[in-house]
């Protein structure tokens, strides 16, 4: 659940001459770019950056996955399409067990070597044989993939052990590395790949611990107008705000209260766009009494003032959640209106109904207005949220005051992120907030929400299903969903999954979480926006969608 939202949040967490040769680090001298301004992106955190461009490392620089190494195809979660990249298309065999990918002609690595199926084969096999390499393809490779073959230089055939069509999205998102370079790497886990050679639109030109620059790759297979990228490390929101206000940034992430603090400073050039692709939920630990009871979860849900959360935590820039916890715009054609209507009352503030439901569930109300659980204990729990996640902290406060109206005590506690993650993913929490999984289809979301396959015993780490709810009927539906590549059939199954979600309410949907994104059009135009919604604007390191944006950017005027 939440992990998808971590990277974008890290930015929101706020917070003598004789030495000079040493300070400058190990960079070889290189002249900075001079031809036109570089596109300046906020994506790196920290004032000293390590030179690591290993696409299989969790610690590599942002540009590695978002500007240097390309995936086979790119899932565009704004338009709902799978866009071609190194592969121009894919086909499934009739039994949905064999995936054939057609590769693009005329692609070369930045060192001039031609790209081909051998590189794809090598990358996937490298991930299979070396444990500890981070990448989208890791899970399908370990769980479903049988053989990978390359009948010719432009075709890759992946045979699966069983029909799991959603594996497609993970497999094609994998960034591909050149065989002729990586076959000489002794240990890909500890490799830092200081001089990256990729197929992407840029190549590394200058690296300093404070930041780095990339220049346009003249051998790139698409036309790109921007001369290069500049990435500086930032230590906190104040620096970012100052840099934005002094006109040094072209493309950034989160801007608090954007109309007032950002757009108003230069309405012609300062823009933001916050499309929504996932919901934020109030997550209860369903292994604990009384949260194992759907009636209690629904009672909590009806006590919550969602409109206030949107107004206060998101400056009114989002919408309250629907009953299935999927943003209404993110999955066109997938949401079942009848299920949404059926569940509407469980996600609508109705204090009388919430109180009645709690009474019915055996939560006796004391003289002080506070309830006790059916076991006779005070109905009081801890609601934990990570320190510095300001929007979540204010939402947690509203959850707490809403529940207090119904006689339930939720004590908001902020803890360090690492403490939060080990408590929550280890199943040792009572109440917390979490974000639903973003994906090409609602399959991944419902798998995390409802599948028994994702439920782990308390104490064992589970990042996907940390509310720890499983439903046998949902398992059958998910298996049927994965076995077909017929979208109409998948949509029918998804409606049944939505029905189970509404009936069980495993987590309590609150509001639609925006994908933060902001841009300045002083130097470059063509960024994705509400009027030109061709790709996501967020430059999240977990999604390769930045590759869809670079070719569309043009010099201003």
């Amino acid at each position, binding site marked *: 659940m939440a*992990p998808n939202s971590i990277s974008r949040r890290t930015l929101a967490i706020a917070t003598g*001459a004789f030495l000079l040769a040493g300070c400058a680090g190990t960079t070889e001298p290189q002249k900075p770019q001079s031809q036109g301004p570089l596109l300046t992106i906020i994506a790196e955190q920290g004032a000293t950056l*390590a030179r*690591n461009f290993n696409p299989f490392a969790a*610690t590599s620089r942002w540009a590695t996955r978002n500007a240097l190494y390309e995936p086979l195809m790119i899932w565009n979660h704004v338009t709902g399409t799978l866009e071609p990249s190194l592969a121009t298309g894919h086909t499934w065999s009739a039994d949905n067990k064999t995936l054939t990918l057609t590769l693009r002609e005329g692609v070369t690595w930045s060192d001039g070597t031609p790209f081909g199926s051998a590189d794809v084969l090598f990358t996937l096999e490298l991930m299979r044989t070396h444990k500890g390499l981070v990448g989208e393809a890791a899970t399908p490779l*370990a769980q479903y993939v049988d053989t990978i073959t390359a009948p010719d230089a432009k075709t890759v055939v992946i045979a699966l052990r069983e029909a799991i069509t959603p594996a497609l999205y993970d497999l094609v998102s994998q960034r591909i590395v050149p065989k002729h370079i990586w076959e000489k790497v002794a240990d890909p886990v500890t490799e*830092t790949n200081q001089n990256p050679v990729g197929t992407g639109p840029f190549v590394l030109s200058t690296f300093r611990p404070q930041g780095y620059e990339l220049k346009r790759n003249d051998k790139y297979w698409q036309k790109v107008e921007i001369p290069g990228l500049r990435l500086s490390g*930032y230590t906190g929101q104040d620096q970012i705000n*100052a840099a934005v206000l002094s006109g040094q940034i072209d493309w950034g992430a989160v801007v608090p209260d954007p109309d007032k603090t950002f757009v108003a400073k230069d309405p012609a050039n300062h823009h933001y766009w916050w499309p929504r692709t996932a919901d934020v939920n109030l997550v209860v630990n369903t292994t604990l009494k009384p949260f194992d009871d759907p009636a209690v979860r629904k009672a909590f849900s009806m006590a919550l003032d969602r409109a206030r959360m949107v107004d206060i935590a998101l400056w009114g820039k989002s919408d309250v959640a629907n009953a299935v916890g999927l943003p209404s715009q993110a999955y066109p054609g997938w949401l079942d209106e009848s299920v949404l209507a059926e569940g509407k009352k469980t996600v609508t503030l109705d204090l009388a109904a919430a109180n009645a439901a709690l009474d019915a569930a055996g939560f006796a109300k004391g003289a002080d207005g506070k309830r006790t659980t059916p076991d006779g204990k005070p109905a009081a729990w801890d609601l934990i949220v990570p320190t510095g996640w300001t929007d979540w902290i204010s939402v947690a406060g509203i959850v707490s005051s809403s529940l207090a109206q119904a006689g339930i005590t939720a004590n908001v506690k902020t803890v360090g992120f690492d403490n939060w993650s080990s*408590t929550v993913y280890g199943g040792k929490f009572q109440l917390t907030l979490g974000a639903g999984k973003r994906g090409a289809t609602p399959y991944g979301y419902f798998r995390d929400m409802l599948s028994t396959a994702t439920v782990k015993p308390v104490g064992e780490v589970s990042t996907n299903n940390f509310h720890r709810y499983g439903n046998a009927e949902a398992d059958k539906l998910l298996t049927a969903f994965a076995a077909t590549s017929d979208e109409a059939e998948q949509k029918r199954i998804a409606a049944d999954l939505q029905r189970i979600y509404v009936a069980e309410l495993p987590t309590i949907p609150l509001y639609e979480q925006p994908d933060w994104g902001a841009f300045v059009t002083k130097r470059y135009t063509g960024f994705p926006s509400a009027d030109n919604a061709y790709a996501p604007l967020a430059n999240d390191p977990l999604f390769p969608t930045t590759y869809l944006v670079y070719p569309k950017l043009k010099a201003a005027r």
Partner: protein
Amino acid sequence: MSRLPRRVLFYLAAGAVAVTLNFFLPRLMPGDPATTLVATYSGQLTAEDLQALRDAYGLVDAPLWQQFATYLSHLFRGELGVSLSQFPTPVTEVIGTGFGWSLLLGLVSVLLSFAIGSVIGAVAAWRRGSRFDSIAPPVALFAGSFPYFFMALLALYLFAVQWQLLPLGQAYGFDVEPGLNAAFAADVLAHLVLPAGTVVLVSIGGWVLNMRNTMIGVLDEDYLLMAEAKGLSTPRVVGSYAARNAILPTFTLLGLSIGNVFAGQLLTEVVFSYPGLGYQLYQAVTTHDYPLMQALFLLITVSILVVNLLVDVAYVLLDPRVR
């Protein structure tokens, strides 16, 4: 005679305690580095991958005392390990990039505020009750009573955003070539003005007050009356007779401040994106980067001990009475 060896022995014992605490303190924090990693890359790591990464990171489930033994043996061989948050960059390399900048920023700001503060304090004491004495120390104290964060943000906004006189942040600009040349030195200096200036501004009050107080004590001494009676010039009396004696207690304080330089200047580094050790320590703590934390704590304790030892030695030279 026996003073120095005794001090050295004391520092060795303190060092041993620090090395032990360095290991255990980070591990007392709730949470662990592996979960932090899973949290970030959940969809892209299988259980086997996670185990492989734990092995590569050197995270073992062995008993704590066994890990402690490994830590000690590595330490004696001078191996500080690799950083987990910036894996697989060696800790020494991570610290190396921040060390120089922290030293530059720290030394410049501490020495400047010490020098300026002591001069103001000495003059204010000499001219007790004058207009200078009734304005300068209170103003310095007033500036110091502002929260640093507020002061730094205000300076950043005014000088870098509003008037655009000084660079926003970082230690040098993108457009200069790092190296031993005048252009780079000038750029570094320009980038140093705001971070160092704000630190000096908020810390100067303490030095002023300290110097003024000890100086007033010294001014009643007979040898000053003697010096004046001899007809020595005022600057000579203030400088070589009064200030020289008054500065001794302040000197201990200076040693402590210089030792603290190695802990980095977290707030300054956050506000000005200055690439020092403070933010690295902060990052190490928030990501459970044990090796980096250990190395930074070690650096901090060792430098404080070394600087204090140096102050002790300097004391012997400066003050004949302790010999």
